């Protein structure tokens, strides 16, 4: 929380001046009852019309001065709080982008989005309110008290007692309610969750005739929420009547004390009116203060959530310059590599050893959760190996400067994500200055030329957010093209052809092989047909490499590989072949 203060840098002047001007405004406000008292005690008593007139003009002048101070204060407060939020937002955005995959996995992207949007907005509101009111309200409250003391010491004691009592009551109720509100909120979350569940699962619920059970479950949670709400409601409902009661009792005592003092001749009738007015002014400010505390509390909670994100350090460090000693061989090498996800109990992959030569195609196959994607994620250093080393060109991937590794590698992720913008803009992600010619070439290799030619505007066709206006297969081809535009030395296809039919998949692989710049390709797939022609195939099971070799070698040596193969090509199974031959 304290760390966030530094983002006020550049707005020090505004941050200090805003509350000061607000206090100035309050000061002018405080003078008004004094003037009114003068009018009553001096002007009316003596019947001096001119005196009254001058005082009334003084009141208007005070109001005008108050307005001017207030506007100045609001301006500075707006400038400071918005400036602070803008800076904080940029810093947080950049910070989130600097986090590694491990942190993104742990935090989850939806939280990060909330912190960047609503949390920072709340912080801005909190700060703005704090600048405007945090000094002003207490100033008026205590100011009223001080003024009251200047009028009459005895009467003013009523203020001195009533302020803390009111404070305790208001703050006590807030304190009791805050945790209860949190509880109510979590019950509301449960109701929301259940509603969502009922909608996403509507087919299953109906297929299993579970409608009544779901309704009963919902009713139970709904009633629990209502009970909680009513309970908190009945406590917070005390706030207004209780403060009203206390304030008026204080006022009664004040008037009674005032009456005694007037009777003794210590003060005059006008002074009682002034005391009464100060009491009224103080009350208004106390109510504001209570609301302010709630808003600021919210702001502080949000600021803490943002601060927590800024405290998360990237677990990945980069060298400033790449280590020397590149052998330029283009070899990708795994040397006894193991990797465990943060917080996971077991290794995702263990003791992987292999070498991919420049220009080779490496197939990686295995069941769901066998560690295929994990393995290729280590090449582009999305995660750091827990044990062993991954090296490219003879240099450990950890010894490359930031950005240089990414230059070399084109990644096509499992999920085909495209961004809002034209096809051209999307294609330029890998290479900012790619020419149309280069883009078309990549599109052709990725079997996406027809897709683009079929769109109005061709490369200028605007892709909607999330690529909604494209089919799954189209998206996948475009993401492949995007990786190819920069002509990477290493291409990683992480199960990226799953939405393509077999013929397109084959044509794609042929085209990549024909690119002719000795591109080293890693293909992750569940389909044997996608990887069976690779120079080297790695078979993974539960994170272990249980087979390595060419298709024909593995057909001989690996039981698992054979099973996978036959599960997809049943007619190739020896016993099936025999029957077919027999039938023929």
């Amino acid at each position, binding site marked *: 929380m304290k760390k966030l203060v530094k983002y006020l840098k550049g707005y020090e002047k505004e941050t200090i001046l805003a509350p000061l001007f607000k206090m100035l405004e309050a000061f002018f406000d405080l003078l008004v009852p004094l003037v009114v008292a003068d009018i009553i005690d001096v002007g009316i008593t003596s019947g001096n019309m001119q005196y009254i007139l001058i005082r009334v003009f003084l009141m208007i002048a005070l109001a005008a001065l108050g307005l001017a101070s207030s506007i100045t204060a609001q301006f500075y407060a707006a400038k400071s709080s*918005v400036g602070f939020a803008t800076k904080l937002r940029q810093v947080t955005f950049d910070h989130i982008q600097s986090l590694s995959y491990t942190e993104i996995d742990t935090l989850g992207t939806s939280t990060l989005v909330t912190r960047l949007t609503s949390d920072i907005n709340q912080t801005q509101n909190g700060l703005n309110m704090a600048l405007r009111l945090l000094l002003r309200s207490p100033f008026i409250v205590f100011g009223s008290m001080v003024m009251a003391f200047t009028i009459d010491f005895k009467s003013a004691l009523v203020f001195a007692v009533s302020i803390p009592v009111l404070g305790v009551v208001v703050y006590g109720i807030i304190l009791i309610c805050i945790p209860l509100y949190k509880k109510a909120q979590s019950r509301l979350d449960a109701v929301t969750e259940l509603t969502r569940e009922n909608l*996403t699962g509507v087919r299953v619920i109906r297929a*299993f005739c579970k409608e009544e059970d779901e309704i009963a479950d919902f009713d139970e949670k*709904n009633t629990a929420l209502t009970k909680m709400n009513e309970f908190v409601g009945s406590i917070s409902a005390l706030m207004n009547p209780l403060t009203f009661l206390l304030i008026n009792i204080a006022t009664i005592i004040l*008037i009674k004390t005032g009456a005694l003092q007037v009777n003794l001749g210590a003060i005059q009738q006008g002074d009682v009116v002034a005391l*009464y007015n100060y009491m009224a002014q103080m009350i208004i400010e106390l109510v504001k203060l209570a609301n302010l505390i709630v808003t600021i509390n919210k702001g502080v909670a949000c600021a803490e959530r943002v601060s927590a994100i800024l405290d998360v350090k990237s677990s990945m460090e980069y060298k400033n310059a790449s280590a020397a000693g590149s052998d330029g061989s283009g070899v990708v090498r795994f040397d006894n590599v193991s990797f465990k996800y943060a917080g996971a109990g077991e290794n995702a992959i263990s003791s992987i050893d292999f070498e991919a030569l420049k220009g080779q195609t490496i197939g990686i196959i295995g069941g769901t959760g066998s560690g295929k994607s994990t393995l290729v994620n280590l090449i582009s250093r999305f995660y750091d190996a827990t044990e062993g080393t991954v090296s490219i060109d003879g240099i450990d991937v950890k010894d490359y400067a930031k950005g240089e590794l990414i230059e070399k590698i084109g990644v096509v992720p499992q999920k085909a994500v495209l961004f809002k913008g034209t096809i051209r803009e999307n294609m330029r992600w890998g290479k900012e200055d790619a020419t149309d010619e280069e883009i078309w070439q990549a599109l052709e290799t990725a079997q996406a030329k027809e897709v683009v030619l079929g769109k109005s505007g061709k490369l200028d066709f605007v892709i909607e957010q999330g690529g909604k206006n494209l089919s799954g297969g189209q998206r996948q081809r475009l993401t492949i093209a995007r990786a190819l535009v920069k002509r990477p030395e290493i291409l990683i296809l992480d199960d990226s052809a799953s939405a393509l039919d077999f013929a397109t998949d084959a044509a794609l692989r042929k085209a990549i092989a024909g690119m002719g710049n000795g591109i080293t390709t890693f293909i992750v797939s569940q389909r044997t047909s996608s990887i069976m022609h690779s120079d080297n195939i790695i078979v993974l099971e539960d994170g272990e490499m249980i087979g390595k070799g060419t298709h024909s070698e593995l057909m001989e040596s690996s039981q698992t590989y054979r*099973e996978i193969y036959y599960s997809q090509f049943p007619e190739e199974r020896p016993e099936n072949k025999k029957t077919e031959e027999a039938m023929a």
Partner: protein
Amino acid sequence: MKGKTNSDTLRKVLKVISSYHIFLILSIIFAAVSVILQLYIPLLFGDAIDNIIAEGKVDFAALGVVLSKILTLVVITSIATWIMNMLNNTITYRVVRDIRSRAIRQIQGVPLGFIDQHSVGDIVSRVIADADQLSDGLLLGFNQLFSGIIMIIVTLIFMFSKSVAITLFVVIMTPVSFIVAKFIAQRSFSMFKLQSETRGEQTALIDEMIGNAKVVKAFGYEDDSSERFNEINLRLQKYSQNAVFYSSLVNPSTRFVNSVIYAIVTLAGAFSILGGSLTVGGLSVLLNYANQYMKPFNDISAVITELQNALACAARLFELIEKERENDGNAELDEAAGEVDIENVSFSYVKEKKLIEDFSLKIKPGTRVAIVGPTGCGKTTMINLLMRFYDVDKGDIKVDEESIYEVSRHSLRRNYGMVLQDTWIKNGTVRDNINVGKPDATDEEIIKAAKEAHSWEFIKRLPKKLDTVLNEDSLSQGQKQLLCITRVMLCLPPMLILDEATSSIDTRTELLIQEAFDKMMKGRTSFIVAHRLSTIRNADIILVMKDGHIIEQGNHEELMAKNGFYTNLYNSQFARVS
């Protein structure tokens, strides 16, 4: 037109609240008591001050009477306010509860088409956010509107009782403060609009770049996205600063107008006192009222916006709540043998776009029917019709010679076991998720089913096995599918529907499950939708669909012999590419 729909919605809202009409009436009565007393009390304070004239001239007896009267009324006011608050809470929260509970029944009862047409987020926000907004806005709105009006009237009466001239002056000056507020609000409105537009733009960028942070990193796009973010952020700073500043001017400006009015009232009051038509206490009262006279006006204008919002939310809610429920057949379908007759069925989701036309098929018990075709060809539509998620436009579907439209949905659906591509895991334990179709199943039965479906391999590795609590994210897509298969394995109804049931499971595991499926399908009528043709080769009848039409039908050999669309499809999957 718009006014009419608004009043229509309002009428419906009142009907919802009507079950709490006693609470509502009581709340209004207590509100009136509370407001009137709150305004009357300062008047009494004025009287009290009038008893404090000068040194030695304080009428303590009269003062005591007034002050004890004040104390009594203050206590009454506090109690009335508290009761009113409690009543309002009760009405608000119970109305929301009632609306939500109606909504959930509706979600279970409306035709599936309605749910399919709306996004989940949309309906959830109606049930949660709109319901809250409705109750808050409407009930508190009504209440504030009501107390605001009483407050203005009573204030004016009290003020007139003190001085007609001064009160008239205050009334005449009322619009000034409004005009000032409106003038500023209009200026700040355009700034707010720019601010929210820019904020939307920024949120979209955040969603894209942070939501896909991994892709951004893979391409080293961080600097570019930071730059894009910065550009929007700076624009937002400019607009926000203006919006915040301009909108914060409303308060001081109206306060200034009020201060001027206050000063003039003081002046006029002072002269009136000198003229003998007003007392000092009376002036004090007038000043106090002049100060708070504007507040209800500001409240009311805020309330009107709130009410409009609430009505808009109510309209969205009623669209859901008033949607007609599905009608249901009366007869009960017993455990079926599994004969399915599809007779001249026509169906389309949208009238203009014909989908299935005049389709007939007779399926004997125990037949294995496979439906294949490219993505989006309408395979799932057949499932929707068989399960009666949607009703046919024309024709009939019969199970064991009984029309599915004559029997209850529950009895029909109990005869089907269904596994869908879109897996659904509810918040609950693994056990809760498996025994959906057979709540009284023993652990032995569950484990047996899990073993058959090959889900036991991962369940047994979960920290608490069957008692592990799951949510949407705790399992991989493949594991979820295995779990859904286990569900059906456990209850085994006479007919089966497998809609891309193994699409996320690797082929080796799929092969193992296939054996279990084969065992399960033996003697059961089954419908299998798949895009992997290897899964459906053994089917008795294969329906080949394209663009919603069934273009070929027969078994694998017959279809291959035709050398048509199916043959093409099959070869494109299994072609040997070199």
